[in-house]
């Protein structure tokens, strides 16, 4: 297994189209790193540069102590699982898993040992003679993973491997991959556009937008302290609410609505010179409350909102409403029976809110 170091990596296509720029990341041995971001953000391109399937325009890539920019993909000791994975339909499971080893001229006995070992890990022992069409979706996905595991590589690269599965199977395979990683203890880089996958699987998340890293951190770090509006809005479902307002001496004024800013946060904003300026308030849906006890103790962040839509999700309900013309979503306990069009008292937990610069959209820090 190995560390991976990426120093100032850049990918440029012709006519100055930059797909990835100034990408710096140290991945420790055995880490499960997830690259996440919207379509076209450069996450798959970065993965393919690590694999060697895309040339690196600038910068250095190290796997272990070796600079691998010019090392052929097959010599990088990596294994890949792709988004639109497929199995060879005319080969049985054993041969599907063995094919990559055959290509690398492994002996028959070594191939047998590795395939049987991987089949045991993945619970595929009794399916080795079956053709792919006789397998369920989950079993096929396990074979696709098996094809990578048999190589016993230094690094696993996975590009949206679950995106073609239905929602139920995706959740199941998510935990299977996590368990597999815990068992194999292999350095893994996993690409997804699904923030839930990123949050549930990663040791660290790399959030990307327009070819640039926005933030690197543990799932908890990026959820609790997003570096900018994009990260705040991307991580978390439903997304963080953003309300733009003008900061006064003690309050944030969102059009005609005034909310009291806690003194700890106000001190930072004051010191950074934001009084009298526009800033963005970010608040997660779960930090907007409808419980009477909370509202009673939060009189200065209370508002009366007309609920446009109340979506019952089971244990919780999503409330869609507006404050001073700006949309927001609250996530409240489903014990509250709330109807569409109902007027309701809500209160913001401003101790948990985030403030961002209105121009740069960066987090305002002490």
């Amino acid at each position, binding site marked *: 297994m190995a560390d991976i170091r990426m120093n100032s990596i850049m990918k440029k296509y012709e006519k100055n189209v930059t797909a990835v720029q100034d990408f710096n990341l140290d991945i420790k041995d055995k880490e499960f790193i997830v690259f996440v971001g919207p*379509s076209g953000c450069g996450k798959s391109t970065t993965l393919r540069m690590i694999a060697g*399937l895309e040339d690196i325009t600038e910068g250095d890539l190290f796997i272990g102590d070796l600079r691998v920019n010019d090392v052929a*993909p097959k010599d990088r000791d990596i294994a890949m*699982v792709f988004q*639109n*994975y497929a199995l060879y339909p*005319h080969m049985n499971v054993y041969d599907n898993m063995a094919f990559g080893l055959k290509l690398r001229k492994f002996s028959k006995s070594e191939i047998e040992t590795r395939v049987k070992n991987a089949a045991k890990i993945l619970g595929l022992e009794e399916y080795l003679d079956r053709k792919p069409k006789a397998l369920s979706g989950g079993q096929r996905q396990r074979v696709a993973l098996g094809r990578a595991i048999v190589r016993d590589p230094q690094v696993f690269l996975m590009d949206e491997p679950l995106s073609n599965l239905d929602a139920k199977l995706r959740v199941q395979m998510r935990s299977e991959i996590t368990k597999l990683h815990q068992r194999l203890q292999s350095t893994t880089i996993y690409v997804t556009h699904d923030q839930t996958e990123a949050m549930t699987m990663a040791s660290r998340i790399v959030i990307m937008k327009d070819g640039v890293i926005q933030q690197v951190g543990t799932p908890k770090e990026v959820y609790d302290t997003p570096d900018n509006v*994009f990260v705040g809005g991307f991580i978390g479902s439903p*997304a963080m609410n953003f309300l733009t307002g003008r900061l006064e001496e003690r309050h944030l004024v969102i059009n005609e609505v005034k909310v009291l800013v806690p003194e700890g946060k106000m001190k930072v904003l004051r010191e950074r010179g934001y009084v009298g300026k526009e800033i963005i308030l970010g608040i997660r849906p779960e930090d907007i409350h409808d419980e009477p006890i909370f509202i009673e103790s939060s009189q200065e962040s209370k508002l009366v909102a007309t609920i446009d839509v109340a979506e019952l999700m089971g244990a919780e309900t999503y409330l869609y409403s507006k404050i001073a013309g700006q*949309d927001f979503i609250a996530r409240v306990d489903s014990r509250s029976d709330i109807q569409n069009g109902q007027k309701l008292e809500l209160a913001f937990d401003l101790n948990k809110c985030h403030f961002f610069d209105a121009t740069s959209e960066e987090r305002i820090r002490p």
Partner: protein
Amino acid sequence: MIDKIKEMFGDRIVEEFSDVESVNNYRWYKTPQDQPFGIRKHSLTEYEVNLLEIFVTPLPAYYLQLSTEQTMWKQLLFEGTQPDSKSPLKPSRILQFRILSKDADQELFQEAIENMLSDDLIFVWKNTYSLIVIEPFKDEPISAQQFQGLMQTIESDFFIKAVVFIGTAFHTFQDSVESFEKEARIFQSFLSLKNINQVYTLASSFPNYLLSQMDDDDYNFIRNHIFHTIEPELKDTVKMLLKCNLNYSLAAKNLFIHRNSLQYRMDKFTEQTGLDVKTIPDAVTAYLLLLKN
């Protein structure tokens, strides 16, 4: 390396084995850059053979020893020789594979294709990186989407970039040659693209092919005129909307913006370009202008 070898061996060297004569009478090798070449057997001394084999690799037998069917197809597609066979041709299609990386193991590549498709294929290697496969047509042929998955599997096995053009069905030898020639020309026009797709069909390649035939100056004139004042953010927005087949809710979700914000941006796009992508002609224009942009 091939230029140096040509210098040394002069007219004794050929680079394409186009017929049975060239297969039998030439000794075939490939350079470390995967370029094949043959040298007339009787002109080579033992010393030259030993020397050559230090630097280049003999081409494997599968590559050279062609079955009657392979020879017939090779002659038909590359030499224009009509087959003597009077037996009717099974409806088929031609798959053109191109390996874009060095160091591919052609024999195993062929085995992989065989296991992707079926065992009644005819393989014709044009050179060490171009494989032509004649596939008898099936009731449920493998779709372009399925090919996408299979090409990714090959990529992860071989660690190479490879692309395929899925040809159209034909029923006669004459049709096969006509289709092949046209499809090969279209396929060739994409091979120099940086952002090449893995799978092309006649239908999916049409917009790109159309643009490749257009004069760059004319294209830039039209694009610059229509997109004269447009903000870059709007281009990304329209691209996403077109990618989502004009589904505003889905596009807004993928762009992480509210549906109303998307509507606002689209109004701005129409204001700045005069294009209303809700109409088919304007959507086609926007699509083509953004495809090459």
